[in-house]
């Protein structure tokens, strides 16, 4: 039985109050052909039938349990068992931020520790309690940079090798603001640090990815210096797992470090929920969107945790808020905190090194195959570009159909000049046997093509 709080009399009273006679009249402005569409739904089924139907649909999914070399923004890392064990405790199991510190010390402390670890990883001074995902965190960084300049600067320079979806989300977020989002229309011409030539006095920020979308690692100091020389901020979208071994962006002059935190204790999760992290320098803390948990002492001098600097948030400042997307990913932030705490500094480094070495083993082996060229002009972390002897889509279909291997990302989808180039990703989850099998399969493909 549906729960409908309004009685017929309530509805009539409301209609009378606003001066319409019927619900139909209330919806008169909705075009007629979509006003009361026939939904054409089947009749109801029993719970058992529904379960059968859903299970048969779910059976079409291909779980990413086997050999997978696809990354490009979402990464399969090991999720320690302790993550789920903590996450699913009744005391923690909510996605919502606690507004009542007196009953939420545990959750607040966990978020505070998450923020602390994100700062340590990125080399920043303050982190918020998270955003939806890496793309929205990047867009929030743009808004923050615009606000640092009090909306006086109208240009945002993005590296062509910032994740294509992040670039799209930045444009969606800022549409209608009259900004010039530039840098990535000259794909194939400009590298990451070469976008420096586009920086000027009207530039609010430059955004670069680290390692970049093609997996490459670059020294960002020249770009940071170029940005600061014109008063612009440097925003770095970083892979937090890579930061286990790489120099933190904060040490290279980044002003805001954002990124996708899914790789920290989050599974691939069918594309979500993911975790956007956002960290910056103290001088920009009031431009930072989202929740921030702070440490304080109560009247007895005991340590406690509270939401702080909330006065710029939507529930208090409405249309003047730093962001009108208030939601965070509390549960995913908790997962990241538990994962980082479980691994510890050495564990984070070990995971990063495993990714690095396995990826380099794979790159070395593939480079030996005739017909395949591995990009190695710049150092890379756990992803690298391979120029293939044929269309990537065909190679991937062969790998999946014949060997059950999920291949790499087809770069031709986003970079026309990289048609026939594949972005391969290797993590600590890929065994040596899997890598050898991939190399063998790629070799077989070549032999077949030759024959």
């Amino acid at each position, binding site marked *: 039985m549906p729960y409908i709080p309004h009685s017929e009399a309530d509805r009539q009273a409301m209609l009378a109050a606003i001066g319409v006679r019927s619900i139909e009249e209330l919806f008169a402005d909705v075009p007629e052909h979509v006003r009361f569409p026939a939904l054409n739904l089947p009749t109801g089924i029993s719970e058992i039938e529904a379960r059968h139907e859903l299970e048969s649909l779910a059976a079409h999914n291909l779980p990413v349990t086997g050999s997978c070399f696809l990354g490009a923004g979402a990464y399969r890392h090991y999720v320690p068992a302790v993550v789920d064990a903590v996450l699913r405790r009744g005391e923690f199991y909510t996605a919502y931020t606690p507004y009542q510190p007196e009953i939420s010390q545990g959750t607040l402390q966990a978020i505070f520790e998450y923020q602390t670890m994100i700062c340590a990883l990125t080399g920043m001074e303050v982190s918020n309690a998270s955003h939806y995902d890496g793309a929205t965190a990047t867009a929030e960084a743009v808004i923050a940079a615009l606000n640092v300049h*009090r909306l006086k600067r109208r240009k945002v320079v993005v590296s062509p090798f910032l994740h294509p979806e992040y670039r799209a989300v930045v444009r969606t977020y800022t549409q209608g603001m009259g900004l010039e989002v530039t840098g990535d229309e000259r794909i194939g011409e400009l590298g990451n640090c070469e976008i420096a030539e586009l920086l000027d006095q009207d530039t609010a920020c430059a955004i670069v990815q680290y390692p970049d979308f093609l997996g490459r690692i670059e020294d960002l100091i020249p770009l940071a210096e170029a940005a600061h020389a014109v008063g612009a901020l440097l925003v770095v979208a970083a892979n937090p797992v890579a930061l286990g071994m790489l120099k933190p962006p904060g040490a290279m002059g980044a002003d805001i470090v954002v990124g996708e935190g899914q790789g920290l204790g989050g599974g691939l999760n069918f594309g979500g929920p993911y975790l956007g992290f956002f960290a910056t320098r103290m001088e920009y803390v*009031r431009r930072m969107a989202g929740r921030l948990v702070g440490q304080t002492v109560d009247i007895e001098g005991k340590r406690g945790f509270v939401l702080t600097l909330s*006065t*710029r948030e939507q529930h*208090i*400042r409405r249309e*003047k808020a730093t962001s009108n997307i208030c939601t965070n990913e509390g549960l995913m932030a908790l997962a990241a905190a538990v994962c980082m705490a479980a691994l510890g500094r050495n564990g984070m480094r070990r995971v990063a090194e495993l990714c690095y070495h396995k990826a380099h083993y794979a790159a070395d082996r593939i480079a030996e195959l005739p017909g395949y060229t591995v990009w190695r002009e710049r150092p890379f972390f756990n992803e690298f570009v391979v120029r293939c002897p044929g269309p990537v889509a065909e190679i991937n279909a062969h790998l999946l159909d014949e060997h059950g291997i999920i291949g790499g990302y087809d770069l031709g989808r986003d970079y026309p000049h990289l048609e026939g180039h594949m972005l391969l990703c290797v993590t600590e989850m890929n065994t040596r046997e899997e890598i050898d099998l991939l190399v063998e399969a790629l070799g077989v493909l070549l032999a077949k093509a030759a024959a």
Partner: protein
Amino acid sequence: MKLDPEARYAKTHELARWDGDEIICGISDHAQGALSDIVYVELPDVGDAFDKGDAFGVVESVKAASDVYMPMGGEITAVNEDLEDMPELVNKDPYGQGWLIRFKPSDPAEFDDLMDGAAYEAMVAAEEEE
């Protein structure tokens, strides 16, 4: 509620006082009291020009972050840099050390449109009654 006898007041609780041919602008004693402890003040850049009623900055207290509006149009000639480290000056001395900005008014006659102390006091009393 303390009043500055020389100043004129805007409905949004800012005040304007002549100093030579420039205006010193702050918020009223009533406004600082209503906001409670002020923790941060965000001010414009010198040289910025605003119309009357434009938001020129933000006064943030433990309770709220509130915009502050130009009582008259003009170009900013100075901002109170002491507030960066000591925002509490706005609470302690709203008519003295807690000033926010100085500006050169574009139309000095706009001063006459503002409320005098008595009118402002009456407006605050009426607001509190509501």
